[in-house]
């Protein structure tokens, strides 16, 4: 037995504080505040399976849409290699998103493979393909949760935001997933034309059976760069938005988790620089980003193993270009428009 696994070190707290073990043995932190450098592997893979999407949302940070799949997306062998490596490294939590992940030709095979091999899977979908049959299949696979974007409490608002999407069909999909018994999360992106509906949307999410309602500030990147004038809420709208959310959080405190980030992107980036999350962003072509809100790429899963990329990730956060980019964001918040011009670190 090596020293690191010798529980006697814990009995004295690992730092000579025998007797207060119980107070320090279980220390809850978020993945965002986990010190990634101490971990053998990531805790979380946020994997964008494809950039193809049946919707063309005004604010999409990935610029996804019909015909927008990357030309070099991972092939079947590639996606299963990544999933296998993630399971072998015991990555506990994997989200599959896109684009629309359910459009990927091997979506269900991947979900079933990952779940069978111990990963807890979250599916982030626009909800259009949540038929009763598909929902049952997700339930049978043991999917941990399904997150559906519902940025409005009315057809008019939702359809304006989610171009090619249909509110009624998405709500039906949400009902289907809830009826199947898969934990449901609702995601809401604020814009100048939907902030006033957030209270109703929280209520609707609860009525539909959601366990969580998640929102934050909409990012100036991707499609939003072109549509920002149509999207960006005023400071007053944001103030009322978060005030409503605080009230709803209190109202649903025992029934549904209302989770929102008031912190702007810059503050979040500063925090991440100090303490990178144990989270890898995997793009459809296998490139791995440090974090969605930065343009830095730290690996390529077509040519490197996940384990190698994890090593790269930890070094890359210390690259001065990353800190410089965050510092420049202070003076020029518009730099987030460049997030799709990848910089290899």
């Amino acid at each position, binding site marked *: 037995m090596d020293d*690191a696994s010798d529980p006697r070190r*814990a*009995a004295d707290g690992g730092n000579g504080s025998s007797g207060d*073990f119980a107070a320090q043995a*279980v220390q*809850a932190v*978020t993945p965002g505040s986990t010190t990634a450098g101490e*971990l053998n592997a990531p805790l979380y893979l946020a994997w964008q399976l494809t950039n193809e999407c049946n919707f063309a949302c005004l604010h999409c940070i990935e610029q996804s849409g019909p015909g927008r799949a990357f030309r070099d997306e991972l092939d079947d062998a590639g996606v299963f290699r990544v999933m296998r490596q993630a399971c072998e490294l015991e990555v506990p*939590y994997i989200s599959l998103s896109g684009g629309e992940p359910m459009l990927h030709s091997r979506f269900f095979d991947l979900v079933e493979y990952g779940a069978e091999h111990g990963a807890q899977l979250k599916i982030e979908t626009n909800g259009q393909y949540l038929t009763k049959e598909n929902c049952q299949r997700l339930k049978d696979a043991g999917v941990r949760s399904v997150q559906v974007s519902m940025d409005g409490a009315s057809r008019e608002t939702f359809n304006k935001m989610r171009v090619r999407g249909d509110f009624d069909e998405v709500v039906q999909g949400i009902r289907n997933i809830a009826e199947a018994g898969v934990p449901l999360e609702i995601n809401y992106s604020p814009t100048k034309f939907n902030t006033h509906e957030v209270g109703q949307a929280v209520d609707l999410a609860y009525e539909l059976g959601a366990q969580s309602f998640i929102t934050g500030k909409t990012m100036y990147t991707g499609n939003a760069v072109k549509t920002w004038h149509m999207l960006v809420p005023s400071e007053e709208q944001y103030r009322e938005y978060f005030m409503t959310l605080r009230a709803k959080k209190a109202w649903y405190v025992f029934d549904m988790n209302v989770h929102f980030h008031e912190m702007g992107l810059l503050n979040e980036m500063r925090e991440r620089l100090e303490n990178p999350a144990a989270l890898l962003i995997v793009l459809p072509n296998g490139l791995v980003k440090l974090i969605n809100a930065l343009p830095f790429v730290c690996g390529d899963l077509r040519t490197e193993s996940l384990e190698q990329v994890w090593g790269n990730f930890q070094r890359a956060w210390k690259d001065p270009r990353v800190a410089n980019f965050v510092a420049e964001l202070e003076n020029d918040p518009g730099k987030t428009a460049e997030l799709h011009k990848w910089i290899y670190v």
Partner: protein
Amino acid sequence: MKLAQYVKFRQEKFGGVLFETRSEKVFALNPTAAAVVREIQAGTPESEIPGRLKASYADGDGDGAQIEADATAFTRQLREQGLVEED
């Protein structure tokens, strides 16, 4: 007792991590705590875990009682945090 449905454990150099994937909370475990979780995963009855750790790791210089107490306290914490459930 077993780990709750949405809880995953992974051994780490410093001990281990429990990841509660519903709340997305991570619990960093020191080596004793990680050893307790391994016993839970192995199906060891809760009442036997402190004794097993004591037998495995106490070195006769008086820390056995401490290990037993730590393990008992930790299993209580796991239950309070909803990280374990009954079989």
